[in-house]
């Protein structure tokens, strides 16, 4: 047995292929990458394309409401994410993977979680952190365990919190339902359609639900948002009306765009959520319980964006619960 000092360990590492060999890379003319899905025709590009299409209504809403501010944020986030991923691929000698759209999607999600009217460098910083440290430091796409967009968002929020506590730019859709609808008790439909939140991606709950329905047809992990909705609803009904969300009126909660943005677009990432069905239920139910608790009792609504990150830390455990088939 060889004496195990660090020199021999370093030597062994050069003799045996390092972990990076497992990544898609050129190996004497052979390209090793993830297996093709022959029957469904699914690929990373098509998957990210469907996510991009699902985000399209929300992006359109944001561009309509906040126009140039929103556009600059989105462009800054997407460009920085693509540049960061390309840089890492180049440094590590991997083929450029920006065409599969993952970096662009992460940059877009990152920019959508920023407050409308945030400076563009905030989106750059968040996207760069999310891609460089949240994703590439752990091995790139396919290996990260924290959602890159959320990790970048958390870093940006903790580093420059004052940009998140400003009064948002006031913007409203120039539309409301006619008064006749209010008369028959459907005031919340108006809120559902036309009331924006303060973040970039929260133009309208209806637009986000539209995207969510589209994703549902694309094989989204529907158990997570459904489980979350169940417990958010339950938490709201349990309240005595003295708290922010525990007020007993579930309609008001269901009209909040931030709810859909959180439980659909930020919590159903394929990598950081469980594959196992039981695990997905537990993920969704605990997310819903924590959202209801945090909004009911907690002080800082920005804390919502930590919850998917926190639960995704136990995803390897949740993956042991139940069936893994689609």
């Amino acid at each position, binding site marked *: 047995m060889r004496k195990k000092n*660090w020199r021999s360990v370093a030597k062994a590492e050069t003799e045996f292929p390092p972990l990076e060999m497992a990544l898609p890379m050129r190996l004497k003319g052979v390209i090793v990458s993830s297996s093709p899905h022959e029957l469904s025709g699914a690929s990373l590009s098509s998957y990210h394309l469907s996510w991009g299409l699902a985000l399209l209504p929300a992006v359109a809403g944001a561009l309509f409401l906040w126009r140039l501010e929103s556009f600059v944020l989105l462009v800054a986030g997407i460009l920085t994410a693509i540049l960061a991923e390309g840089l890492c691929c180049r440094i590590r000698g991997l083929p450029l993977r920006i065409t599969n759209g993952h970096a662009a999607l992460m940059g877009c999600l990152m920019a959508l979680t920023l407050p409308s009217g945030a400076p563009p460098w905030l989106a750059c910083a968040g996207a760069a952190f999310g891609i460089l*440290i949240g994703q590439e*430091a752990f091995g790139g796409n396919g290996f990260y365990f924290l959602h890159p967009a959320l990790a970048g968002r958390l*870093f940006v929020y*903790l*580093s*420059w*919190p004052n940009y998140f506590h400003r009064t948002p730019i006031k913007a409203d859709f120039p539309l409301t339902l006619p008064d006749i609808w209010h008369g028959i008790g459907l005031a919340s439909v108006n809120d559902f359609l036309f009331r924006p939140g303060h973040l970039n991606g929260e133009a309208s709950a209806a637009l986000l639900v539209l995207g969510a329905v589209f994703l549902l047809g694309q094989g989204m992990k529907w158990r997570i948002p459904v489980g979350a909705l169940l417990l958010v609803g339950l938490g709201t009904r349990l309240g005595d009306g003295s708290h922010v969300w525990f007020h007993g009126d579930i309609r008001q909660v269901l009209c909040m765009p931030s709810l859909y943005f959180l439980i659909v677009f930020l919590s159903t990432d394929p990598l950081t959520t469980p594959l196992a069905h039981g695990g997905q239920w537990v993920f969704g139910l605990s997310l819903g319980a924590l959202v209801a608790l945090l909004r009911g009792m907690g002080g800082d609504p920005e804390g919502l964006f930590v919850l998917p990150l926190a639960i995704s830390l136990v995803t390897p455990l949740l993956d042991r619960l139940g069936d893994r088939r689609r």
Partner: protein
Amino acid sequence: MKLTSGEILTKGFFSENPLIRGIAGLCPLLALSTTLREAALISAALVAVLLATNLTVSLIRAFLGAHYRLTLFIIVAAIYTALAQAAAHALWGVLAMRLGIFLPLLAVNEIVLGRAGAFARHQTAGHSAVDALGIGLGFSGLMIAMSFLRELLGLGTVWGFPILGEKWHSHAATGFALPFGAFLAVGLGLGFLGKVRRHA
């Protein structure tokens, strides 16, 4: 294995650096690398305690029994830690208060006890002193580099002065000054050094 004094000194910088090689002494590194001043003071205190403990243990190594060895190490280290603490509070009172519990904790610091047990109790006083200096400088170097980066990125200052101007100071990435920034910086730093080592 016979090492010269020069080898004993330089092995502490990299090949046997307690932080890089053993991930020992992370506690002060994580907690006190927020600003350069705190890092400098805790580094100085650690070098002083390590040097004195190594010397003392080496000088009394003929009387060390197997059963009470660790107890003696801790007593020796605690005496010097108390002295270092008193000196720090007398000379840099406010700064020493900011170090909090981590200054008294040097008495049971894994680097101090580790070097006493692994090196000083077998070696002559001169070699033990050189070893303490090498290990201490290896620790201090990493500590100071880390705190320099964290203070610059997290607070926008170096040694308390906003050298890059007031605008950068007010826009610094506070995340690096927060506790999670310490883990981030240490993880990235150790990963980088490991990469360097593999290519060396």
